[in-house]
């Protein structure tokens, strides 16, 4: 009976339903389980929930020597400072442009690649291509940035050597603000596009082959089959990924931007995440940078919930 309750089955008889161990008995029975739970619980408390509490710093004026509790409350002062700072518009602009480019050029790329892979009928060829395009996902961002530097440097990089041979001049890709965004976009596509196909290919493997056969008999060509069978099969996956993507519109991937950022391309490269790092860790303005970080997370949550609401409005199932 005990197990029937645990498995969520309705009790068969009223008499049996009355038997349920008291809390004290259950706690004693499961004491080993609570012991096992303890390390994980401590971890979440210490490294997830204490920092959440630490968000209150955004409303205080934290001084390392006064400590968290004794620092004075300043209300929304840090937010006011941040919004009044001319940097705010630079950060907002850079962040949004990068996110927009990412959404337009990167987001559809794995979908297109998955559709093309799905059209390949030779299993071996498909598997070899998949094996190769997944590799960059496992390469660290530092290596990706290093490769970019080695390829694009003006001091002996192959791209600039070729440019020199054909056009007679070099381009300072790594320090020119105009080149920052294309480079970031290219890095993202190179690193994650292949890996991104996995989730769509998984959804497509569930499509019944007979649907394609029936469509062929009805006279549908390849393009129509993709449009009417393949795409609908991955539509809900696309929507879910889009909702999640919206939540991170203000997150541009700290490591990537930070690695490619330098004083020369800063006008295009500085985003919220790197600003939080520079202000908080480098300059020690803990309260101010916490406020900037909080602003970013709150906008992220609003965007996730908003997109989710919109998706439901248009008849999709949404996340929540």
């Amino acid at each position: 009976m005990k197990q029937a309750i645990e498995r969520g089955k309705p009790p068969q008889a009223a008499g049996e339903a009355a038997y349920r161990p008291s809390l004290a008995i259950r706690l004693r029975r499961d004491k080993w389980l609570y012991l096992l739970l303890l390390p994980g619980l401590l971890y979440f408390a210490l490294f997830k929930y204490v920092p959440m509490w630490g968000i209150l710093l955004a409303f205080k004026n934290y001084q390392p020597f006064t400590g968290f509790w004794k620092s004075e409350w300043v209300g929304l002062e840090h937010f006011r400072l941040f919004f009044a700072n001319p940097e705010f518009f630079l950060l907002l602009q850079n962040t949004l442009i990068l996110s927009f480019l990412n959404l337009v050029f990167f987001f559809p790329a794995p979908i297109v690649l998955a559709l093309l892979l799905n059209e390949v009928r030779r299993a071996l060829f498909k598997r070899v291509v998949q094996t190769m395009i997944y590799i960059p996902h496992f390469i660290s961002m530092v290596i990706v940035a290093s490769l970019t530097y080695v390829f694009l440097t003006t001091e002996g990089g192959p791209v600039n050597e070729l440019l020199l041979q054909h056009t007679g001049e070099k381009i300072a890709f790594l320090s020119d603000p105009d080149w920052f965004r294309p480079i970031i976009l290219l890095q993202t596509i190179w690193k994650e596009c292949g890996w991104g196909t996995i989730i769509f290919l998984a959804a497509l493997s569930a499509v019944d082959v007979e649907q394609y056969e029936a469509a062929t008999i009805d006279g549908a060509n390849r393009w129509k089959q993709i449009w009417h069978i393949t795409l609908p099969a991955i539509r809900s996956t696309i929507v879910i990924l889009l909702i999640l993507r919206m939540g991170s519109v203000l997150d541009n991937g700290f490591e990537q931007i930070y690695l490619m950022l330098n004083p020369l391309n800063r006008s295009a490269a500085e985003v919220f995440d790197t600003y939080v790092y520079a202000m908080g860790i480098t300059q020690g303005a803990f309260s101010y940078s916490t406020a900037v970080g909080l602003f970013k997370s709150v906008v992220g949550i609003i965007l996730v919930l908003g997109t989710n609401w919109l998706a439901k409005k248009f008849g999709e199932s949404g996340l929540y």
Partner: protein
Amino acid sequence: MSKRNRSIAGTIFDAANIIFLTACALAAVLPFVYVVAGSFASDAELTSRAVFFIPESLTLDAYKFIFSTDTIMQSIGVSVYVTVIGTAVNLFFTVTMAYALARRGLWGRNFVLNLVIFSMLFGGGMIPTYLVVRGLHLLDSLWSLMLPGAISAFNLIIVKNFFQEIPKEIEDAGRIDGCTELGLLGRIVLPLSMPVLATFTLFYAVGHWNDFFGALLYINDPQKWPLQVMLRQIVLLSQAAAGDMNSMDPSFVAPPDQSIKMAVIVVGTIPILCVYPFLQKHFAKGVLLGSVKG
């Protein structure tokens, strides 16, 4: 071949598709081939040929040079240490918590699960987490690279779901034979979960090896820098000396800057490429597991 493949347009599409996909696959790996080739190439070749995949004359000078001092070896040591110990920490925390949360009758289980899920949606952010790590006096300690990310909530939930699907009857049989709760975990549940745990071991390990953010935030002491930070110093900032000319033979000609950087990149990439075949065997399964709701 099915009928839908017979039209001329279809054939052209198939050919174009195969060419395009081949190009994509090559684009994913050729940068590595070039970097490996460049790291073995001589100065003359690097300046005379812009792009090549097989060097005409092989030289090990770049590697000799970067291993002439302890800088690289030491950071590799740090990375290996953090990867091994850190992955063990990850597995310990993830498995114990997942096992407890897999028991449906556990009092407080839903509350804890909700705490975990909420932490996936919202977090304290960079600075408050930094202050917690600093408050624990973990700055400049390698534990700061292992403890703050000890559990990935996402992985925890997948492992929990997997444990939950192990048939109750097997556990009951173990209990009747006198297994304690810990014995059950060690002798029945863990052996049954080996494939899943192997997947997460690899993913956690790759995560540690590739981690740059943690060390950037928490480690200031160059002696304790992992390889990723050292890579950035050498390749991106050109600030750390990869080798020492004074320790080399007087006849040794300094290898070109480019091939030194390429050699460092190769050293940083090889471990990943070595585990990749194993990863590949597991990750499709891992990702599919993630889509199972529980």
